[in-house]
Structure formats: structure tokens, C-alpha cells
């Protein structure tokens, strides 16, 4: 074996050791930093500073559903079907989210659906519609189907997409507008019922 090759061995070993030490120290420091940050957050929350800085409520899903639906009707009556269709999808989305929130889906201080842990409901149509259709809203069997049974046609939104806003108008499924309109009306009627029921304000 050549001499220079024998001599290199210990050097390589030290480099490796040094590298491992550095990596360990870095990991340790990161861990400490994270724990410290967590403690700081908790401290702030306990002191009430976080609450004092709470953002005012911005989200009102029911009011938003009403607004989108109303404007969709205006657009549809003016022959502006492309954007009317977009708004029917948003009206349905907001109406379903209002129903979820009324039944205790946790929200952020802003009124938005809570971001973590990631749930099934921070979605657009048609995915949101599928998530809603599979759940029951009251624990009791007699009442569980009260609102969901008012929404037989959420699947009308299966060919609706939030991406339609980027599309060429000629490519939009214009024949579906009528279906989207019908399904959005069902969501609105559900909001009417839930309001009269005192389930939502």
C-alpha cells in the first residue's frame, strides 16, 4: 500500500467526526429554538396580548352565500351566464360552509373555517359538496337528515370548477348553468329553513 494512502485515513475520520458534531449541535440548537418559540407563543396567549390583537370577524358565510346568489341571478338575467355560473358555485360553497359552521365546525377568529388541522371542508365545489353529502348534521337519527335531504342535487356541481374563471368562454359547460342554478336554489332554501329553525342567525 502506498504511504500517502495510509496517512489519509485518520484525517478522513476526523473530518467525519467534526461533521457529525456540527450536525448534532445544529439539530440541538434548532430544537431549543423551536421549544423557545412555542413557550413564547404560549406566554403571549396567556398574557392576553394575542386576544387583544384578535382580528375582527370578516367572514360571514351565510351573508356571502346570499350575496353571490343574488348577483348570480342579476348576471344570469343579463345573459352573462359564464360569471353567473361561477357565482352559483360560490353561493353553494358559502351556504354549505355556513351550515357546517352553524353545526360547530371550528372557526378562526376571523370567522373562516379553522386552517389546522387540515380538514375536509376548506374546499370549493364540487369536492365540498361530496364532503357534506356524506355527513349527518345532528347526532339523533330522526333529525340527522333534515338539511342534507334538502340538497339532493349537489352533484350538479360535478362539472363546475373554480378554474373556470381562467377558461375561454366557449369552452365552459354552458348547458350546465341551469343545473347549477337549481342546486344553488336548494342551498338557499336550506339556508332559509335553518334560519327559521334558529340553527343559524
Amino acid at each position, binding site marked *: 500500500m502506498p504511504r500517502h494512502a495510509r496517512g489519509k485515513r485518520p484525517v478522513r475520520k476526523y473530518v467525519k467526526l467534526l461533521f457529525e458534531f456540527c450536525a448534532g449541535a445544529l439539530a440541538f440548537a434548532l430544537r431549543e429554538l423551536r421549544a423557545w418559540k412555542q413557550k413564547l407563543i404560549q406566554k403571549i396567549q396567556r398574557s392576553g396580548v394575542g386576544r387583544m390583537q384578535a382580528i375582527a370577524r370578516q367572514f360571514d358565510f351565510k351573508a356571502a352565500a346570499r350575496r353571490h346568489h343574488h348577483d348570480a341571478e342579476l348576471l344570469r338575467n343579463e345573459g352573462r351566464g359564464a360569471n353567473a355560473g361561477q357565482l352559483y358555485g360560490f353561493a353553494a360553497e358559502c351556504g354549505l360552509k355556513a351550515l357546517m359552521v352553524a353545526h360547530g365546525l371550528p372557526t378562526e377568529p376571523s370567522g373562516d373555517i379553522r386552517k389546522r388541522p387540515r380538514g375536509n371542508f376548506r374546499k370549493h365545489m364540487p369536492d365540498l359538496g361530496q364532503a357534506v353529502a356524506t355527513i349527518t348534521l345532528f347526532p339523533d337519527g*330522526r333529525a340527522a337528515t*333534515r338539511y*342534507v335531504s334538502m340538497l339532493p342535487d349537489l352533484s350538479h356541481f360535478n362539472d363546475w370548477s373554480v378554474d373556470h374563471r381562467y377558461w375561454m368562454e366557449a369552452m365552459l359547460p354552458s348547458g350546465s348553468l341551469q343545473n347549477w342554478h337549481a342546486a344553488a336554489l336548494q342551498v338557499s332554501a336550506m339556508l332559509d329553513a335553518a334560519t327559521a329553525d334558529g*340553527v343559524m342567525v
Partner: protein
Amino acid sequence: MLLIRDVYGRLRFAVNIDRDSYPVSARAVLDAAAKELGAFATPGEVLFRDDFTDANALFGHEDWHQTLVPGVEKDDATFTPDIAIQLLDRQIVGQDWLHTDQPLVEGQVPRLVFYGLKGGVGRSTALAMLAYRLARDGKHVLLLDFDLESPGLSGLLLPPERVATYGLVDWFVEDSVGQGDDLLRDMIADSPLADNTTGAIRVAAAMGQGESAYLAKLARVYADVPTPAGSVRFATRMQRVVNLLEKHEKPDVVLVDSRAGLNDLAAISIAGLATVTLLFANDTTQNWQGYQQLFEHWQRRPNVLRHVRQRLAIVQALFPESDQAARAERFLQHSYDLFTNTLYDQIEPGTVTPLDAFTFDLGDQNAPHFPLRIRWSPRLQEFDPLVSVEKGGIGNTDIEAAFGPFFDEVIPLVFGK
């Protein structure tokens, strides 16, 4: 101004015009009144037409009822007047007690509902006996066991091997996925009780033969079902299956075993199905109190009251063998007091009774309060109608002794005189 009582029992004012058309001062009055109600008010503002996408659906809802709020005694011993108000009761269950204006179709088959506030008053036995008597009279009798939470009619009238493939619960479960009607022909069984008669006893039981998942099905029976025409409530589905079975069977009469107690199955049977309801009762305080609660519920809604009270007849069940005269008198008096205080028109003393007034004398045998009587007999304890006389069963003589007077009263009630 209207009132909506929400599903939690809280009140909210509603006005059937747009928000901007309503005087601000009047709205302030309502807001102040709602504030006064505190926890008894639904949170949120007064509701106007523009709060709803389909305001006509809400303000024209079938559940609006004129409701009488009784006057109260004030500190100076004077009374405030009764107030009539339009109230929309938003309920998850129980609204069917007030859905009484069933459209009676031409040639409607008589439907006799057997109801009791409590079980154990011989309701199902009386139903089986009447079915037998009607079959002997040559009638085609259809029995429906809607006592879904404690089914028993098929056990009383069908040997296990004769029970039909499917029960009523199967129909409800299958109907919710749009295939209930495939079951109709396999839902009805012949009772051997009518084998030697000129008529027939056909039984639609709660559960089918060899059922092994009854509770799992029962839990799904009451669901409201989504359809293209909107949400279909359980009451509508129940009326539908009765209509379908009638169309399929063409019976001369339908006897319905209703569930006991103040629940929805009973409400739909009595208010939404029956041409006559037999109210089984015994002379106990809890019995009269229960009926009083039910009758007062109707009494507060004058339109409902007018519909329902003509179709009721009370039955003194298990009429004891001893001390009959005194017991009959006591029962009659209690029944009369109940009906007079709730269902009968109140006639002020000293005024002339209008000809069309719904009011009766204590001793009027045609009055709803005048009981049909079923005699209690030790021979009927643990009675099994499928056991022949030779094997220790009960013969026609015993049946007539206990039920004869009841049959004689109830048959004209069903078929007319």
C-alpha cells in the same frame, strides 16, 4: 307581525314585508320586545321577507297556525284577554299532530287506528278480535303494524312460517334509496285466523321473516329523503306506503296498530291517516293527564281542532268484571270532563247553543266521550288467537262475551249505520 318558535323553543319576530318597507319605529318596538325575552328569543334581528331567498315558502308554510295565548291574571285580579297569534313552530319531530287536513279521496277505504297513551291496555288484542269478526262478516281486512318500536301484531296473528318476506321497516329503508315499491308484493301475509271465514285477514307486519337486523333498520326508518322534488318527510312516506298497500290489496277496511304514547308514528296515524281513531284508555290519573296534554295541543289551534275531533272515539279498555255500574259512571264522568274542557265548543251559560256547535250531553251515546267498552276477562289473559278451542284456545262465545258490545258499536262507526 308573526312569531317563529325555533327548534330550541326560542321566539323570533317575523314580518311578511321587506325590511325597508317596515316603519323604523315599529321595528324598534319588536327589537325591544325581543330583548325583553332574553334567552327565550332567537339571537338575531327581526326577520323580513328579504332575509329569505324564497320568502313565499316560509311565509306560506303549511305549519303556520293560529295559536291562542291564554290571558293571565294581573296583580289587580283582572285578566288580560286571550291573544290569537300566527305562530310557526319549527320542530324536528311532533309537527304531525297538527297536520290534520288530510285530503279525503273519493271512495277512501275506512281506516281505523288503534291508539293508546300507554301500552298493555289490550289494544292489539282488540284489533285482532275485530279483524276476526270482520273476516267472519266476509270482509277483506288489511292490518298494518305501525307499532315499529314494539312490533307484536304478526306474532299474534301469524305463525312464524307464514310471516311475509319483508316488513314495513324494509319498505322505509328501501324507499330511501328509491326501490321500496319492489317490495310491495312480498310484504303481506295471510293470517290463518281467517282460514275458516268468508273474509280475509291480511297482515303487513313491522318486520319480515327471519329478520336479523331490525334495530339497524329501525334506526334509519325516520329519515327525511332527498328527491328531485325536494325533501320528503317521514310522514309523507308513511302515508304513501299505506296508499300503495291499499291500492295493491283493495281491502274493505284497514286496521292500523299505532304506536302507544305521544310520538310521531301515532301523530301521523291519528292526524294524517285515520278516518276513525279509537283512543284506548283506563280510568287512571296518568291516562287522563296524557290525553289532556294531547287535546290541549289541538285546542290551541282552532282549525286543527275542528278537523280532528270528529274522528275520535274513546274506548274503556279492560273494563273490570266487578262493580261495573259505579266504574262505568266514573269513567264516563272523567271522559266527559276531559272532552268538555278541551275538544268540545265552550258554550257560555245562558246563551243559546248554535245548531252546528260541537257539544254533547254527558249521557249522549253518540258522543266521542261516550266510551265503547271492552270487558276484561281472565280467559283473555295471555290470549293466543291462533290456538284452537280444542287445544285450550278461546271460542267465539268467549270472544263475543268480551268484545260483542264493542263490535256492535265500532262497526257502524267504521262503515256507517
